[in-house]
Structures are given as structure tokens and as C-alpha cells.
């Protein structure tokens, strides 16, 4: 889009919108310490949302001064104003003031890593041309000092044409200075202006022209020749007319210039870096001779070593995985027990109104509990990610793993999302944020739920315990459990391959990964990351989950009437005169479910699941487990006449599954049926929380629907495949 129309749009909007706060945008390269600085400026006064229409997260906060309150926005990190990723595109839109929901920033706080000045200055050359008032916050000055270097701040400020404030973000050193500087610069903005000259190739031409003219006895400066090319003065033209042999080279240079200027009126990359190198040379002083081997070098010798590096990596990932898988369990059990207790406490008070009782206890309390149960895993994973990212290890791990994940179209950063998904796909999908390339990120999100999460475990344990272990022994039981965990991983490889070739459009970004020096984690950043990740999950995914839980509850509850219940009771008592009150209640529950919308639906689509060897009871259990696959266990409990107080270890349920029969008397479950059902649950997308998270992370239902469809089809086909094999070989 041409710059002019953009500017017109901004002006048009500024007129119609009432602007209450001044807006400060914190911009800078990734790894420059931008988020740490933003966190120390705004603390927990932050808002985390989404930019409309894109998957990029919008983080903003408020900064209070004596006189006024300003809004501070944490612009996604970027390397250049010529964006290549979605993150960068949004960042550029925010800076230019055309991003939806933000106005044009009144001040850019440009965060620059003092220890990596040259590269950081490249972005500055572009920002300085954007016409915004700029204030530079120089971070990592403490590290610079440790490395025996220092920066001449006055000189830097003069060369940049704006104020430069050194800060040590996590220690809040220089923070007061920065806040004062922000207030001052909002009051009296400084627009940096500097001359970078034209692209290199043209400057060379100018120099050679000047030399030729000098040989003919005319002494002009480079600037005069440049001007002579663009807008020749009368004096200059008069001189040229005296030397016809200069006409041709001048015309040629002019043509070249117009061509280059029309395609890019600004200086090229090389010229900008020359300027950046010049500035760095001018301001950086080495007080001590640089150390041959820095701490980072020494740590890297171990951590990215071809043998020890991989051992450390596997060890660390094992720790992360175990933490999500095992350490979260007691807390999750606690949450479950807590919500059960609430349910049990509330339940008697509503006994007079059965529909309200069921709605509140099974629908509402069950739904909220079913969502909050994921929170411990999310918090634990994001604790590790924040620490690993903050220390700089995450980049090393991606470096180590890139080759392994790269060949099928992912990249080294995908290992965290995929590994965490073995515990739970929800934090796994949320952590795909560590991948800046949108295409790889989406591919990772779409296959993450194929990894066998802990919620599948109850299903595996129930079926293995009922059908594999009794017949084949502990070894094959263990093997089946392992195979089920491996299945998703194996299936994911061709899926990623197909996604990358056929489905996901757009170009993959080159895998450019900065390996920042190691540093200690900044604990405030870690806590804030956990806090906001948890909050985002509860707020956005949570509402969808609770809503859907209520919907499934309603489908399995209605239609229901007292008359029908009395009828079921009567017919049960006739055939079982000695039935206890509990047995009657269980039978009525079963009949109610069988006649509910969900049960009728299960019966209707039973023919679809027949090729997989499933009857209407298994089908209804699968349908009712749509919100969360682990709920298939209590559902089977209700359907197979045991009430809903069963778990995967309950011997009664195993027995009654093993004894259940088709109408013609064949056993319903064989070992194959059990494997088919396990394979179905290994591959299906029966987890609303995952779908809600995908919706939130990709900002569209489209991908959530796509994921549900492809995984369900895959799961169905695999289950049918297993049953057909059975028909072929086992009978």
C-alpha cells in the first residue's frame, strides 16, 4: 500500500476518534530486552488481547505520571520495517498507526541492546525515517560493562539525533530516568533526521563522475555532483555544455538513478549497515582487552556439544515433561476433588428441582472444574518456557533440534510444543508462540493434538486392563500402552508433510535464529508470563469450554420426563423384583441417557460406526466424550449400567464391558475392538479445550474446524481399519 493512502487513512481516523490517552510504543529487535523493559514500566497493569483478524497477541499497559496517564504498547519484536512475518507486519502497522484498534503512537521508545549495537542500529535507521518522535532506551549496559566496554552516551545521542537513556530493566536501574524522559519527550517531541546518502552503487558512480570532471579541471564536491544529477543548477549546466564528452556518462548515471530511486527511494541495506558500523566505532570504547572466551562460549561448549549437548537437552526435556505429566497430577486431582466436593455439597440443596440440580452440578460445576483442571499444566509449562527462553537456552535447543524437525517442514523451535503435547495439547498449542514463522507455527498447532496426552491415559488403562492384560499378560499390556503413545507421533510426520505441501499457503520463512548470550532468568518476567498465560486461558478458552459442557449436558439430559422415569422403574422392577434402590436408579439413568437426544443420535449413527465394530452404546459414549475424551470412562459406566461413579481402575466396569454382547449374543468387545477404540481415541480430536485453544491461538474457528474434521476422519478410518483386519485375520 502506498504510504500516502496510509497517511490519509490515519488522518481520517484521528479526526473521527476521540483520543484520550497518549500512546507510547515500545519497539525494538527481538532479544533486545523489550519485554523486560515493558514489564518494569507497566508491572501487572497489562492487558493481553489479540489484534483483530490476526494471530498476533496485543500486549498493552498503562504508565502513570503526576499529570496524566499514558498507554504503553509492547510492539512485537522486529528486525526491519520491511516485514516478513505476521508479527512483524502487525508491528509495522502499529508503528505507522494503521493497526486496527490502535492510534498513531505519539512516541516510539526504541529499545536497543548496547551489546549488539550495530544490528540494533539497522532498525533505528528505518525508524528514524518514519517521521516519529523517538527516544532510545539502551539496555544491557551492565553486560557491556562486564565485557570491558562502554558507550559514549553523549556522542551516541548526537549521532542519533534523539535522547538516549541507559537502563537495566530487571533491576529497575535507570527506570526513573526513562519515565522522566518519556514524559519530557511527549511534551517536546524530538524527530531524528539524518542523511544516509543514496544506495552504494549510485554513490560509486557519483564518485567516478567527479573524478572525470576533476581530470578536466573542474573541482566539484560529491554533494555538488549528486545535486547536479538530480537538479542541476544553471552554473552546473553551463559547465556541462562546455564538455560534450561528459554528456553521455551523465545521461547514463541519471537514467540509472531515476530507475533506482523509483523502485526504492531509500538507502539500501549495505549503506545502512555502513552507517551503523560507523556509529558503533564512534561510540564504543573498549576499556579492557576483550576476553578470549566469554561465559557464553564456555557454556555453549557443553550445551551445544554434539554429545553432551544432546544429553543435557534430553535430560532437561525429560524434566519438563515429567513436571507437566507427574508433578501437575496431585494439583489436578486436588482441583477435581474440590469441584466434586462442591458438587456434592450443593447437590442436596437442589434435590427438590432435579433439572436445576443436574444443570448446576453436572453442567456448570462439572464444566468449570473440567476447564480449571488444565491450569496447573499450563502454569508449569509456561514457567519452564519463560525460564528457558529468558536464559537463552531455548534458542540453543532449537539449534540442536532443527535438523531433526526440519526435514518434514517444521523447525527446531517445534520441539517444545510437540513435547508438551504429550502431557497436554493445550499448553503445547499455546507454546507454539515460540515460533515466529506463521506457517511452521500453524503446522505445529495442527499436529500437536496427535501427540498422546495424559487425558488418553484413562481410556488406555481401562481397555488394556479389561482386554489386553488378562489375555496376553503384562508385557503386551505395557507394549500396547507404548504403541498407543507412539502412534500419534508416527502419524504426525506425513500429516505435517502434506500440510506444508498442499494445505498451508504462503512461503516459509528462512530459519534465522539469534543465539543471545546466556543470562539469569528475570523472575518478574517469568511470573508475569505465567500469570497472563493462565488468565488468557481461563478467560477465552474457558468460556467456550464451559458453554460447550453445558450444551453436551443438555443433549444428554433432554428430553426427560417423570412419566418416562416411572415407566423405566416399573418395567425394571417387574423383571428384577429383588432390585435395590441403587440398582433401580442406575437402570433409570441408563434408560434416560439412551432416550436423550445424545442417545437417539448415537443410535441413529450406529451404522456409521458398525464398520469399526462399535455398537450404539460405544457410539454414544464417544459422542458424550466430545468435550473431553477422558469422560468416556464415566460415560461407559452409565451406559453399561454402573452409574457414573467409576474410574479406569474399577473392576466392575472392566467386567461388565467384557460381558456385554451384541443382540445376537456375540461378545461386543474383542481384543481388536478394544484396540480399535484406543486407536480412535489416540487420533481423534475429542477435546473441546484443545479446539477452543486452537480457535484462540489462530484467531479463527476455521482451523479448529479443520483440525476436528481431519482428526475425526483419521480416527474413524483407523478404527475401521483395525476392525477390518480383525475380520480378515481373526475370524
Amino acid at each position: 500500500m502506498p504510504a500516502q493512502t496510509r497517511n490519509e487513512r490515519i488522518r481520517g481516523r484521528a479526526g473521527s476518534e476521540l483520543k484520550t490517552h497518549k500512546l507510547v510504543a515500545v519497539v525494538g529487535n527481538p532479544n533486545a530486552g523489550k519485554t523486560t523493559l515493558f514489564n518494569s514500566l507497566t508491572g501487572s497493569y497489562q492487558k493481553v488481547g489479540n489484534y483483530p483478524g490476526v494471530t498476533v497477541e496485543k500486549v498493552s499497559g498503562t504508565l502513570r505520571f503526576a499529570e496524566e496517564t499514558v498507554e504503553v504498547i509492547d510492539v512485537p519484536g522486529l528486525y526491519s520495517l520491511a516485514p516478513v512475518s505476521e508479527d512483524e507486519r502487525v508491528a509495522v502497522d502499529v508503528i505507522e498507526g494503521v493497526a486496527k484498534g490502535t492510534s498513531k503512537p505519539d512516541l516510539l521508545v526504541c529499545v536497543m541492546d548496547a551489546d549488539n549495537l550495530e544490528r540494533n542500529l539497522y532498525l533505528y535507521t528505518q525508524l528514524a525515517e518514519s517521521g516519529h518522535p523517538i527516544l532510545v532506551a539502551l539496555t544491557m549496559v551492565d553486560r557491556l560493562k562486564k565485557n570491558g566496554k562502554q558507550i559514549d552516551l553523549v556522542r551516541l545521542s548526537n549521532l542519533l539525533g534523539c535522547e538516549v537513556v541507559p537502563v537495566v530493566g530487571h533491576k529497575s536501574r535507570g527506570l526513573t530516568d526513562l519515565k522522566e524522559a518519556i514524559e519530557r519527550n511527549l511534551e517536546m517531541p524530538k524527530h531524528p533526521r539524518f542523511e544516509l546518502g543514496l544506495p552504494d552503487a549510485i554513490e560509486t558512480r557519483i564518485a567516478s563522475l567527479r573524478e572525470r570532471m576533476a581530470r578536466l579541471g573542474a573541482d566539484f564536491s560529491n554533494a555538488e555532483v549528486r545535486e547536479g544529477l538530480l537538479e542541476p543548477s544553471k552554473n552546473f549546466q553551463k559547465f556541462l555544455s562546455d564538455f560534450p564528452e561528459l554528456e553521455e556518462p551523465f545521461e547514463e548515471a541519471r537514467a540509472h538513478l531515476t530507475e533506482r530511486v523509483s523502485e526504492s527511494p531509500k538507502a539500501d541495506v549495505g549503506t545502512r549497515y555502513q552507517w551503523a558500523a560507523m556509529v558503533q566505532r564512534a561510540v564504543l570504547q573498549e576499556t579492557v582487552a576483550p576476553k578470549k572466551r566469554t561465559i557464553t562460549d564456555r557454556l555453549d561448549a557443553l550445551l551445544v556439544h554434539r554429545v553432551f549437548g544432546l544429553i543435557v537437552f534430553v535430560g532437561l526435556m525429560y524434566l519438563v515433561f515429567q513436571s507437566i505429566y507427574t508433578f501437575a497430577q496431585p494439583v489436578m486431582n486436588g482441583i477435581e476433588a474440590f469441584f466434586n466436593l462442591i458438587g456434592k455439597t450443593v447437590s442436596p440443596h437442589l434435590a427438590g428441582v432435579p433439572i436445576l440440580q443436574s444443570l448446576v452440578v453436572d453442567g456448570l460445576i462439572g464444566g468449570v472444574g473440567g476447564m480449571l483442571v488444565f491450569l496447573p499444566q499450563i502454569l508449569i509449562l509456561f514457567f519452564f518456557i519463560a525460564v528457558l527462553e529468558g536464559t537463552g537456552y531455548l534458542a540453543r535447543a532449537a539449534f540442536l533440534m532443527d535438523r531433526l524437525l526440519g526435514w518434514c517442514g517444521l523447525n527446531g523451535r517445534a520441539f517444545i510444543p510437540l513435547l508438551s503435547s504429550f502431557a497436554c495439547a493445550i499448553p503445547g498449542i499455546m507454546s507454539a508462540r515460540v515460533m515466529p514463522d506463521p506457517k511452521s507455527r500453524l503446522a505445529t498447532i495442527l499436529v500437536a493434538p496427535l501427540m498422546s496426552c495424559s487425558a488418553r491415559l484413562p481410556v488406555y488403562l481401562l481397555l488394556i486392563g479389561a482386554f489386553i492384560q488378562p489375555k496376553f499378560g503384562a508385557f503386551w499390556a505395557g507394549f500396547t500402552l507404548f504403541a498407543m503413545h507412539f502412534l500419534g507421533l508416527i502419524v504426525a510426520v506425513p500429516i505435517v508433510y502434506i500440510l506444508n505441501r498442499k494445505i498451508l499457503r504462503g512461503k516459509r520463512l528462512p530459519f534465522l535464529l539469534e543465539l543471545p548470550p546466556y543470562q539469569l532468568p528475570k523472575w518478574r518476567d517469568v511470573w508475569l508470563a505465567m500469570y497472563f498465560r493462565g488468565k488468557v486461558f481461563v478467560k477465552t478458552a474457558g468460556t467456550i469450554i464451559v458453554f460447550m459442557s453445558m450444551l453436551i449436558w443438555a443433549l444428554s439430559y433432554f428430553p426427560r420426563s417423570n412419566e418416562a422415569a416411572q415407566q423405566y422403574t416399573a418395567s425394571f422392577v417387574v423383571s428384577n423384583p429383588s432390585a435395590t434402590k441403587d440398582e433401580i436408579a442406575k437402570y433409570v439413568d441408563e434408560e434416560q441417557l439412551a432416550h436423550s437426544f445424545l442417545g437417539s443420535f448415537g443410535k441413529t449413527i450406529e451404522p456409521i460406526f458398525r464398520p469399526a465394530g462399535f455398537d450404539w452404546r460405544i457410539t454414544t459414549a464417544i459422542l458424550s466424550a466430545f468435550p473431553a475424551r477422558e469422560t468416556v470412562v464415566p460415560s461407559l459406566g452409565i451406559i453399561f449400567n454402573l452409574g457414573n461413579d467409576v474410574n479406569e481402575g474399577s473392576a466392575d466396569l472392566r467386567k461388565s464391558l467384557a460381558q456385554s454382547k451384541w443382540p445376537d449374543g456375540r461378545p461386543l468387545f474383542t481384543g481388536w475392538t478394544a484396540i480399535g477404540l484406543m486407536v480412535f481415541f489416540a487420533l481423534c480430536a475429542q477435546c473441546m479445550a484443545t479446539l477452543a485453544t486452537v480457535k484462540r491461538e489462530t484467531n479463527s474457528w476455521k482451523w479448529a474446524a479443520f483440525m476436528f474434521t481431519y482428526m475425526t476422519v483419521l480416527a474413524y478410518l483407523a478404527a475401521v481399519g483395525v476392525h477390518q483386519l480383525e475380520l480378515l485375520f481373526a475370524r
Partner: protein
Amino acid sequence: MTFADLRKGMSGKVVRITGNSDDVMRLQEMGLTVGTQFKVVKIAPFGDPIEIDLRGYRLCLRKHETREYEVELVQS
């Protein structure tokens, strides 16, 4: 020669960039312009990607994504 021909510890210089793709543009914006000197710090365990030191920072690149770069050795 290209980045794929370099070994750990070698120092090099960008001689020429062929092609004008977005990837090349981004690599240049990361500081890898013609004339830039760098040192190969490390090669990942499985042979790719490689880590280089340039302009005072460390960058990791995939060999096949830098095919359009021509480099030469420099005595360090």
C-alpha cells in the same frame, strides 16, 4: 564457496550475493551484506544449521537457505 563448505572455527567474508529473493533480503537485513566478515562458531550435531559470529552477535542459519551466498576464507 558457500556456507556449506565451511568448517568450525573458519573465518570468512561475503563476496557476492546472487539472487534477490525475500530470504536473501532478510539475511542482508540481519547484517549479512556483501563484505561482511564472520566466523563459524559451531555446527549443529546433525551437520546443520551452523552458528556464525557477525557484527558482534551470534546467528544461526541453515546451509540450504544461504545457497545464494558466495563466501571466501579470510585469515583470522
